[in-house]
């Protein structure tokens, strides 16, 4: 007979997988909207956002009742602590994706700018880091965690560089200021999605190893590119 707590933990795991998939879809949608010229209709996105919010609340409820009724310890405790944090991170990823979609609609001559500053490449990498993040929660694979850290570093560097170039462009050509600013905001959002993914990877690492690596410079140590 399965322990009651195991049923609850299984439920929790499934919901996180579900909410992770939804956020992954949102990011994919955001990247699509950002990169494609005619802007798609945002109805589906809004619906998904509501689903994510509901699941996020549901996760908190389940965690609360597990704490109150089962007093989890050791790996159970780490799993629940991580689940709560991970669902927060996922919820933010969803929000950032929505912001990207909204901002993308207000960038004039978007296509030219995207080509000029190699934004497509960054956006695709952000899409891929969200996929990897869901995978790492599911498989608890340490090498995937390493890949996420490395990818995050790369995204961060490329965002910095693109932002630097956009600012220079704005300095020399004042007509690009509005679009340029919006694009900088989008880049910052992409960078933050990647950060949230990295945080999730850190929680998965904590779940497996009981070690907290938050705030440690992992990109420059263990998981060197």
């Amino acid at each position, binding site marked *: 007979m399965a*322990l009651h*707590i*195991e049923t609850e933990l299984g439920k929790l795991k499934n919901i996180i997988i579900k909410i992770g998939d939804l956020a992954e879809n949102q990011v994919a949608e955001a990247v699509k909207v950002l990169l494609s010229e005619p802007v798609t209709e945002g109805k589906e996105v809004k619906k998904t956002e509501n689903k994510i919010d509901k699941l996020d609340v549901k996760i908190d409820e389940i965690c609360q009742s597990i704490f109150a009724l089962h*007093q*989890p*310890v*050791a*790996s*159970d*405790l*780490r799993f629940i602590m991580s689940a709560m944090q991970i669902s927060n991170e996922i919820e933010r990823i969803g929000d950032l994706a929505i912001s990207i979609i909204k901002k993308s609609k207000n960038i004039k001559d978007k296509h030219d700018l995207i080509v000029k500053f190699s934004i497509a490449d960054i956006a695709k990498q952000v899409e891929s880091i969200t996929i990897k993040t869901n995978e790492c929660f599911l498989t608890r694979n340490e090498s995937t965690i390493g890949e996420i850290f490395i990818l995050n570093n790369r995204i961060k560097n490329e965002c910095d560089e693109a932002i630097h170039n956009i600012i220079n462009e704005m300095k020399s050509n004042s007509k690009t200021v509005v679009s340029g600013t919006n694009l900088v905001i989008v880049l910052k959002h992409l960078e933050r999605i990647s950060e949230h993914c990295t945080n999730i990877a850190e929680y998965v690492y904590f779940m497996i190893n*009981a070690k907290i690596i938050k705030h440690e410079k992992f990109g420059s140590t263990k998981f060197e590119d």
Partner: protein
Amino acid sequence: MQKIESKGINFYYGETQALHNVSLSMKENSVTALIGPSGCGKSTYLRLLNRMNDLIDNTKMTGSILIDGQDIYEKNTNVDDLRKNVGMVFQKPNPFPKSIFENVAYGLKVNGITDKKTIEERVITSIEQVALWGEVKDKLKKSAFELSGGQQQRLCIARALAIQPSILLMDEPTSALDPISTSKIEELIYELKKQYTIVIVTHNMQQAGRVSDTTAFFYMGELIEYDKTKTIFTKPSQKQTEDYITGRFG
């Protein structure tokens, strides 16, 4: 130096071996919780610390137990002095059929203290120590059986404290108590730790977490893991410990 140091303990009830090569040390003024499934040898180990197992026929021990550096199983050990130094509280409150006052005074008289004033002082201090004074000060002459279970248990602890031990052994001291009495005993353990070294057997994992500094997990007569309580309950190193504390045993 460790307050209690046991090395390579094997213990037998007749042919049955109840403890296998158990080595376990405890620091002064610490609380150690002994946990593990029923029959794993917790009580057996606890009783070795004040030679209570001597009272059971046909038992045998090998290995050594040092308290304050002294081997308590050495031939010239005075067992009465040992038991004075190592007090014990049991699962069920077991007051004597005497008055509240007499229950606490009993141990003193047995130990040859006759001065009335000394006895009175010690009785009051001990009852105060277990935070029972407010509840019993007006009925010291009444029978101890008129107290509630939780009050009786605190009275028994007061009785153990009156003879001024330095070590207190507790075998599931709250298993018969309601949550309020339990939390009073737990608070008491926390207070007593300043002056005593405490070893407590408990089946309540949360209690072990709340009251102890170190936790020892026993299984089938073996000490499987012994570590800081925080470590045991967050990241035990043995799978058996993890399975036991998360309730997935067997």
